[in-house]
């Protein structure tokens, strides 16, 4: 069972005090994290911890705060308040100390199109300080079935091939923490299934921690052993997929997700709130 600090700040209580002592063995410890852009609160006082070897999904609709949360975990975005620690390092101040222990893949971040796959992987092997770069690239290429692509320009690959190459880059340093932003977006079902199998295999054989942001419920059900459900920047659920489905009295995670984003079932507004909402609408 993963160690959790669930829900928003007022629920965190004693667990927040626990999280205040940095632990270099904890892959991710997020405490009371908030990000405000102008007048928009993208992430609203969230707290959670990830245990080593866990595969956790950040689930939520568009604008729920998934990408901003991952960006803060990577040190790409600074929190407005709160704290992100990765292997004990404060990512706002000391990202460099742990950057070599994590990696990231997203279809929205590219590798330079003009370079061949091998050249791109060689550059990243240098950046991550991999001494046996040639052997490592050959091994990963074989494992991810991208050997025939190694000497082709990255920009000329199909979406599925680019995803596999992106994954190769993300696995080069054998990260202990792998962050994924919609890892199978725009892939055909067969390729998506293959990628999921590879991710599962990687997490199991390495004992690595995976955090993925996804819209794909089947993917989350298959990969994640824990789901953090975000809505309007807040954590509203933090459970195993099976427990989430059970507590909502639904058959699939997709139905749970729709309940949440449409404000139905367990997350339906109280009658007073509904009255206020209709008043707001009328006015």
């Amino acid at each position: 069972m993963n160690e959790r600090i669930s829900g928003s700040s007022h629920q965190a209580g004693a667990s927040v005090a626990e999280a205040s002592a940095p632990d270099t063995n904890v892959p991710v410890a997020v405490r009371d994290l908030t990000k405000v852009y102008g007048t928009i609160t993208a992430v609203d006082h969230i707290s959670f911890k990830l245990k080593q070897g866990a595969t956790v999904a950040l689930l939520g609709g568009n604008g729920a705060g998934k990408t901003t949360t991952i960006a803060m975990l990577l040190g790409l975005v600074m929190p407005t308040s709160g704290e992100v620690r990765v292997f004990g390092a404060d990512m706002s101040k000391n990202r460099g100390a742990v950057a070599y222990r994590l990696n990231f893949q997203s279809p929205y971040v590219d590798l330079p199109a003009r370079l061949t796959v091998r050249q791109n992987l060689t550059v990243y092997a240098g950046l991550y300080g991999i001494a046996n770069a040639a052997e490592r690239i050959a091994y990963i290429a074989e494992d991810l079935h991208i050997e025939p692509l190694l000497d082709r320009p990255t920009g000329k690959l199909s979406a599925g091939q680019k995803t596999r190459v992106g994954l190769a880059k993300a696995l080069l340093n054998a990260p202990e923490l792998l962050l994924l932003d919609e890892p199978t977006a725009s892939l055909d079902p067969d390729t998506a299934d293959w990628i999921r199998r590879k991710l599962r295999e990687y997490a199991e054989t390495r004992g690595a921690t995976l955090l993925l942001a996804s819209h794909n419920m089947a993917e989350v059900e298959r990969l994640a052993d824990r789901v953090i459900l975000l809505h309007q920047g807040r954590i509203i659920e933090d459970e195993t997929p099976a427990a989430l489905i059970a507590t909502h009295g639904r058959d699939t995670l997709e139905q749970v997700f729709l309940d949440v984003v449409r404000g139905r079932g367990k997350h339906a507004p109280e009658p007073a709130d509904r009255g206020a909402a209709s008043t707001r609408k009328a006015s």
Partner: protein
Amino acid sequence: MSTASAHASGAEPVLMPPTGVRASLRRIRALVRRYIYLLRSSGVRLVELIYWPFLQMLTWGFLQRYLSETTSPLAQAAGVLIGSVLLWDILFRSKIGFSTTFIEEMWSRNLGNLLISPLRPYELVAALSAWSVIRLSVSMVPVAVAAYFFFGFNLLDLGLPLVAFFAVLVLTSWSLGLISAGVILRYGLGAEELAWSLAFLLLPLCCVYYPVSVLPDWLKPVALALPPTHVFEGMRSILLHNTFDAKELWWAMGLNAVYLVAGYVTFSRFLASARVNGTLLRLGE
């Protein structure tokens, strides 16, 4: 599988220490290698590097030849215009090399990958600086050789001061490159125009083709506060009067140190601001 055989087969990466000078140099080298790959991937880019400075040199070289046949002894001084063009191109090409390489990372939506890797911002700056010098050499050496063959102008006639001129101009270009990169980081590719135009702001102010004495009095302090002005004054002094005032170059170096620090602080502040505003999430869009 034993650890040794896992390393040999590539099943396990052999990770080198992530901190220290050697780690920094390794990351800088990796990034410079990326830029070399990029240049090698396109013959057009390589030709383009030489094409524009070559055209400039030809145009000004023929003008110089025309002036030397028809006008005053001052204008006849061998190579003043060609020298100005070549030195200006050192500043301009180095600045463009720094800025466009940085913009290239944004165009290719690769900056996110770089900024989450162990690469530190100062290593990115060091790689861009090193690359601007390599790119400049590829661009300027053939053009300087061509200037000798076409017009008998030997840049090396400037002697040892040429090394100092080169250093002053390259350092200034880095300061300008840092400011451009910072602004683009903060405001996105919409501010790209700045990368192209910032160096041109210096063209009239740092007296590339005329002495400081022709400027109005109120503009002279501005010109003298710019390091390249001292380079162009120095070059004219050598070519026209065969004299060289080293004090001017020391002054230019001192100014450069101030501008470089200011450039790096600007870049760092804009990078921090981009992290706060979330601009890094939207780069390349």
